[in-house]
């Protein structure tokens, strides 16, 4: 998991290019959601809930002094798949890389257009929260 954010997002864009139909893309998102490593139950607390999502989303971050590791969960599987994408891109990266990450891949794969406004807002909140953690570790 040492590739750069850039490399990881390029992989994701290529992956999504393989599917033409949005039902297939959603199918892919759902399987990513099912594969998302489980969050430690102790982190599934209200303090870790992200505001602005219609489904519940928990996000936890750890920092080993070099890289940030994210774990997350949601009660909705599509949301979980979207989280899985974000975790795949940002987890294991340095705080600097996360803060400066270009996440335009979300638009490139057409995801934003296919999310309802509330879900799109939820995605924005999720990205904000991930960057917020990174920013906090950066200033440590």
């Amino acid at each position, binding site marked *: 998991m040492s590739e750069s954010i850039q490399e990881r997002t390029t992989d994701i864009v290529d992956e999504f290019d393989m599917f033409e139909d*949005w*039902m297939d893309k*959603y*199918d892919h998102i*759902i399987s990513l959601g099912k594969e998302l490593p489980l969050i430690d139950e102790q982190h599934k607390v209200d303090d870790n809930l992200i505001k602005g999502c*219609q*489904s519940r989303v928990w996000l936890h971050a750890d920092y080993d002094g070099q890289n940030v590791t994210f774990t997350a969960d949601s*009660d*909705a*599987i*599509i*949301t979980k798949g979207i989280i899985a994408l974000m975790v795949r891109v940002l987890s294991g990266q340095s705080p600097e890389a996360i803060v400066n990450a270009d996440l335009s891949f979300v638009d490139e794969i057409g995801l934003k257009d*296919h*999310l*309802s406004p509330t*879900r799109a807002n939820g995605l924005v909140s999720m990205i904000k929260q991930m960057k917020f953690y990174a920013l906090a570790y950066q200033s440590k």
Partner: protein
Amino acid sequence: MENTISFDINDIRKQFPVLSREVNGKPLVYMDNGATTHKPKAMTDAITDYYERINSNVHRGVHHLSQQATDAFEVTREKLRAHINAEHAREVIFTKGTTDSINTVAWSFGELVKPRDEVIISTLEHHSNIVPWQMMCERKGATLKVIPMDDRGVLDLEAYQTLLTEKTVLVAFNHISNALGTINPVKKMTKMAHEVGAAVMIDGAQSMPHLKVDVRDLDVDFYAISAHKMYGPTGIGALYGKEEWLNKLPPYQGGGEMIATVTFEKTTYADLPHKFEAGTPHIEGVIAWAASLDWLNAIGMENITHYEAELLEYGTKALSEVDGMTIHGTAPQKSALFSFNIEGLHPYDVGTLLDQLGIAVRTGHHCTQPLMNRLNVPGTIRASMGLYNTKEEIDTLVAGLNRVIPMLK
């Protein structure tokens, strides 16, 4: 005008241009009529006609256009009066919609409320028939009580009877529940409230598109209506109030239109209905609403109720066969609305995938969080029918569910 058009569903659908569009590459199946209905061409034509031919402020000008606008505006009031069988047109107040109508009564009626008075609402209420009463009770030191319901979504009338006391000043509940489709026994519950001297306010947002409403037969004191849920324009609605009550209540908002005379020392208020209509109203909305009313009456409310009952029966049967299905809301008196959950699945996921198939449903708590808590679910998937929905569309919904459920499992 009654019953002059036969109920030809293809003919009806043709009058809604939006119904022939595609969403995500699939023909649109619109089943979110509880949130808002689509509009017949006759209504949108009336809006255009108003702006192209009339467009003037009402109740003000000496000039011809203003007179025409005023006449057309008042025609709607009369048509709405007839539609709900109110006694006088002045008992029909134009508002922004159901929420605004409820807030008007909650504020104005609230001025007559004393500490320790009691207001009763029901478990089935939309937030807009909860929060204004909470605010009023907080402001006046009054107490809010809630009628419980059973697992089918039927209100417990015995419990209601015990809540009604000489302290009760007002009872507010919906005619039809937006989340479960329950049709409440308004006439009976109103009679019970009147026996202890309480006034009754009905949230009619969901009943107006589906039923013939007769406010005099129901004997309700206030009835709230949204035009946009009954094939009319957004941003406009009405409050029916018995004249006796409306005369007793202080005006809700001050401004132009609602005054008789103004000096810096004292203002006297206009007579009904203007006392409750401060400011320039939603003129084109009011005028175009008449086109929706004519259109509904040409089809006939009874025919609509009858057709939608068929959709309810057909849909209930078809959906019951879907894997893992729980239908929430199984009241014997019910409108054509399906609120459901699929075992193990989040409503939001199901709704998102149905949308990819062109099927528009609503997911979530439907602005009824206390009701969702009572049902012990985070939310439901709601497919709410309008008079243009068909059995084939219900088949499409069922086929859609059968496709997306295995994907999500």
